[in-house]
């Protein structure tokens, strides 16, 4: 990997819980000591179950909810600890694609205005005609007809709305895109269309991508490397194919075993572990067991 676009070093995000009726308020370590690097043109998949902290990590990296501790840098520049006004000019380099395009697009704005908005905020175009041309080009890039610009989000299907969200995200040619469950709410046949689109755009614009999802098959397809998150920590990180061929951590194995394979013959022959998962954290120190393949200790931490 050349110089990484995104470097996260021991990133933590803690929330103070309301506390129980008895005793002091407790601190929830939603994300704890996460190290990550993503290079240009690279997609890092981030998988984990709900509550594992993967979305919280995504928001902490983008400084939407700044991390409690640790540093994040974008293209060599430290972005954690900056004030909002210091961050503002950097925001254009990092964009997010959300799960539900229905709720992330302003229903009162036309699709053209939605896509033009980041360009206008960044004062990218002073000439209205040039701005309109750029919006048309972006619609074309996400394979929507030019006529879409005058229409409103509700007139589109879920998959089309996700294309609008993607057009907006790539409008300023960002260095980093974080896609948080970007295809999870779409039907299977539409998912494939959007995944292909994202991969085409990345090939063209070479952005680094953090692809957060719970669907392991989708992540394996789109990601170069995959990080498995469990209870706020990374338990395993490896190149995609290697992770699936040679999972080392018991939690990764449990996750892979649970995924049903769309082939009854394969399913009939499969032996899977069906026991409950130990809901205890594993230590945050990762060991490199093979080039690029990092694993947390296989024994969970003792009960506090």
């Amino acid at each position, binding site marked *: 990997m050349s110089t990484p676009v995104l470097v996260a070093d021991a990133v933590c995000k803690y929330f103070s819980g309301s506390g129980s009726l008895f005793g002091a308020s407790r601190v929830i370590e939603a994300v704890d000591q996460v190290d990550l690097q993503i290079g240009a043109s690279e997609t890092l998949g981030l998988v984990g179950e709900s509550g594992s902290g993967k979305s919280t990590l995504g928001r902490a990296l983008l400084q939407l909810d700044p991390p409690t501790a640790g540093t994040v840098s974008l293209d060599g520049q430290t972005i954690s600890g900056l004030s909002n006004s210091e961050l503002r000019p950097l925001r254009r380099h990092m964009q997010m694609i959300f799960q539900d395009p229905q709720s992330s697009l302003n229903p009162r704005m036309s699709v053209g205005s939605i896509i033009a908005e980041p360009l206008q905020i960044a004062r990218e175009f002073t000439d209205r005609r040039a701005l309109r041309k750029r919006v048309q080009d972006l619609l074309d890039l996400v394979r929507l007809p030019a006529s879409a610009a005058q229409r409103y989000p509700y007139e589109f299907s879920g998959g089309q709305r996700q294309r609008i969200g993607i057009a907006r995200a790539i409008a300023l040619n960002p260095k980093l895109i974080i896609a948080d469950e970007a295809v999870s709410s779409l039907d299977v*046949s539409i998912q494939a269309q959007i995944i292909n689109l994202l991969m085409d755009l990345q090939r063209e614009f070479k952005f680094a991508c953090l692809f957060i999802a719970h*669907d392991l098959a989708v992540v394996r*397809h789109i990601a170069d490397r995959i990080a498995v998150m469990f209870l706020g920590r990374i338990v395993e990180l490896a190149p995609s194919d290697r992770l699936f061929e040679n999972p080392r951590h018991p939690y990764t194995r449990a996750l892979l075993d649970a995924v*049903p394979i769309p*082939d*009854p*013959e394969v399913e009939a022959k499969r032996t*899977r572990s069906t026991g409950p998962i130990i809901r205890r954290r594993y230590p945050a120190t990762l060991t490199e067991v093979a080039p690029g393949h990092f694993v947390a200790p296989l024994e969970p931490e003792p009960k506090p």
Partner: protein
Amino acid sequence: MLQVRSLKTAVKIDGTDHLIVNGVDLDLQAGETVALVGESGSGKSVTALSIARLLGRHLRTVGGQVLYNGRDLLRLSERQMRPLRGREISVVFQEPMTSLNPVLTVFTQLAEIIRRRPAEGLDVRARAVELLDSVGISLPEARVDMYPHQLSGGMRQRVMLAIAIAARPRVMIADEPTTALDVTTQAQILDLMQFHIREMRAGMLLITHDMGVVARYADRVNVMYSGGIVERASVSDLFARPSHPYTRGLLKSIARLDRPRVARLPAIEGLPPPLTARPAGCPFQPRCSFRIERCSQMPPLEPVTPGHDSACWRAGDLLDSMMPPAALAATGGGA
């Protein structure tokens, strides 16, 4: 045991009836799991709701029969239907929070069902705890007294399952029962459902969009598209020899963990037709690379091989093209 014949359910949009479910036939035998798969808007959930007679105000079944042990459920009054629902026919939905009563404890909700089947020496509380234990709830003695909001999503879905099996139903209708849950929880709950279904010799109608779940848990499959069943077969036949272009395209467009990565997923291009503008003839034709002129007439759901039906004029061609493996790889499901 359960036979659905020519079921038609309509929704009123701007004063006009549109058929969300347009002539669906289904059969469910005791002890088997039959999957109904399709994408959002295909009509699979409305089919389930129509069978259980749980349609809201905007939906209305306008034709067909739902025969349960020879009685047409669609002709029963709500009063006649109520004792059947919950006792003989149980329904499990995707979001347990909306089907559990938030102001009653788990025990109260379970006890209501348990008392419907009075037995001598029945200890309702012991039975409730036993049921929770059987659906994999740890510390059942404590959790039986909790309210739904005190439980996690997976735990609530387990409670729903406990309620559904408490009545020992003959038919279980499960509408995306685990879609909202994590994959490890999903596997545990579906394993439990399958165990209980087999143990009770009940039949399960499993509604899902997940072909992996179908492959793991179903005996037979019905594929729905745009309000109708386009293909039905045993689970092994359907995956080995998909004989409708939609099924074939769907199976190819899924990223798979058990196969080498492909550079590009073969997506089905285009979108399903909107309810208000379905094309005449085969609803899949605008997206179909096998389309011929005849597709402007609706193809009937007919056998391609014994026990395997497809609603495609070219089902025979599709099946032939599949014989040599090279041909399978060469033909695309989408345009």
